[in-house]
């Protein structure tokens, strides 16, 4: 008996699908050349599989701010926010996030994953009920588990299904927290937030929206899908990450609730981990200011999205969703998806390979992300390569496997 025996099926699956010389889950960037290019396997490669939507990882203001904080405050805090790990930079960033979102207060977490863990384990307890979209990110599932609350799943992006499930619960028995994402990370599809907000209000539930992939991308000011859909006043909690449009690492939770701050001494994922390094807090503050001051960044991103979406659609590729920063191309199955992914990498285009069980509905897909840092030439190269590999692969969708309701 071996502790690792339980991984034999996974080892078998991985071995049957992936060659040692091209592991889609272990790609190494030998040299990062810019927000849009890197050297991989000795080849100059266009990065179309990041979450660098606004291309700010090399923003000069952010780098200067980070270097300044590094020199002034050192490489790390060596402690949690409730011990020695709160610096003026953390508090300034929390004030900046709250101001940007128009919220009463905000709490910063060390990673985006921990922001969801911290929000859910902090807000909900064993006497509460959390209702989550079936396609929720792993951090939402894990946060629910950590909270000890009762967890009910509803069908993906289906407000009527949420309505039905809320209707089955005793209105007086527990607090109810509904959790959705503005944009879903695999298909790139967008939640119908106005309808969800209407349903949650009717059932007197709370609504939390994870804007991880939509912050900086949607809304007139880049505040996310809640802003774009005009439902910020009906959204009780906004959670998000610094590791996508803001180009660093970390996460946040913002709300108008008067008692939000109590989570600082009640939410274990906030309390029991080291705080953001000062340089990261400083760089996020700088990219946040850039997003607020430079709407042209978003305009550039959307021009790139329009162009790539248009070219892939015109070529007949099967896209999983409408226009957004994530354009996922449906493929016939895992083996075909891997072959296509590998050919793209060999052609100097990096995208993400996503296969079951990490994808909704058993779909195998090539996940492309669009960036404001992509030049028009980058976008044409990505489109040409994707269309070429899709044309040479068997594009017949895989037979539908059995699924429940």
């Amino acid at each position: 008996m071996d502790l690792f025996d339980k991984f034999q099926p996974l080892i078998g699956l991985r071995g049957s699908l992936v060659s040692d010389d091209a592991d889609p889950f272990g790609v190494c960037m030998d040299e990062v050349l810019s927000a849009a290019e890197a050297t991989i396997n000795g080849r100059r490669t266009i990065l179309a599989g990041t979450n660098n939507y606004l291309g700010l990882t090399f923003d000069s203001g952010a780098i200067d701010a980070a270097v300044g904080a590094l020199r002034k405050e050192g490489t790390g805090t060596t402690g949690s926010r409730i011990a020695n790990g709160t610096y003026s930079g953390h508090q300034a960033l929390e004030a900046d996030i709250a101001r940007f979102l128009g919220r009463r207060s905000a709490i910063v977490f060390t990673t985006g994953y921990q922001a969801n863990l911290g929000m859910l384990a902090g807000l909900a307890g064993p006497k509460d009920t959390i209702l989550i979209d079936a396609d929720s990110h792993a951090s939402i599932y894990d946060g629910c588990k950590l909270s000890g609350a009762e967890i009910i799943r509803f069908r993906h992006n289906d407000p009527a299904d949420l309505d039905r499930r809320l209707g089955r619960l005793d209105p007086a028995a527990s607090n109810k927290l509904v959790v959705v994402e503005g944009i879903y990370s695999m298909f790139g599809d967008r939640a119908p937030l106005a309808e969800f907000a209407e349903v949650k209000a009717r059932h007197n539930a709370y609504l939390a929206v994870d804007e991880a992939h939509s912050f900086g991308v949607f809304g007139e000011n880049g505040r996310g899908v809640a802003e774009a859909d005009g439902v910020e006043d009906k959204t009780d909690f906004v959670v998000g990450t610094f590791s996508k449009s803001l180009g660093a690492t970390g996460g946040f939770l913002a709300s108008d609730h008067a008692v939000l701050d109590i989570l600082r001494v009640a939410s274990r994922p906030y309390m029991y981990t080291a705080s953001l390094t000062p340089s990261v807090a400083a760089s996020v503050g700088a990219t946040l200011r850039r997003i607020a001051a430079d709407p042209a960044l978003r305009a550039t991103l959307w021009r790139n999205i329009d162009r790539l979406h248009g070219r892939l659609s015109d070529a007949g590729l099967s896209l999983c969703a409408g226009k957004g920063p994530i354009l996922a191309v449906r493929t016939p199955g895992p083996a075909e998806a891997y072959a296509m992914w590998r050919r793209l990498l060999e052609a100097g285009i990096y995208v993400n390979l996503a296969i079951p069980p990490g994808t909704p509905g058993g779909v195998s897909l090539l996940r492309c992300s669009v960036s404001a840092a992509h030049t028009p030439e980058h976008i044409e190269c990505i489109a040409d390569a994707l269309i070429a590999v899709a044309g040479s692969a068997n594009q017949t969708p895989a037979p539908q496997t059995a699924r429940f309701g």
Partner: protein
Amino acid sequence: MSGAPVAFDEGDVGEEIRRMLAPFNAADIAMTDDTDIAADLQIDSVDTMDLIMAIEDKYDISIPINLLSEVRTIGDLARIVVQSSPK
């Protein structure tokens, strides 16, 4: 649901679950209450959660997915449905 709540019969529920699982029974094994949903039917955790949603709709009940840790066999699942039935 209308009218007085009616508790479910575990045998009937087990039969209904076997009917719902039939499309997944690729190896055409004889399903009983002792059939292991993951090991015998190769149904992964996501499909099991989808099965729970379908059962909730079939019986108009709520089954928190927290209870999945107690489910290994068809019989385990039928018991949870009966426990979740209107009292």
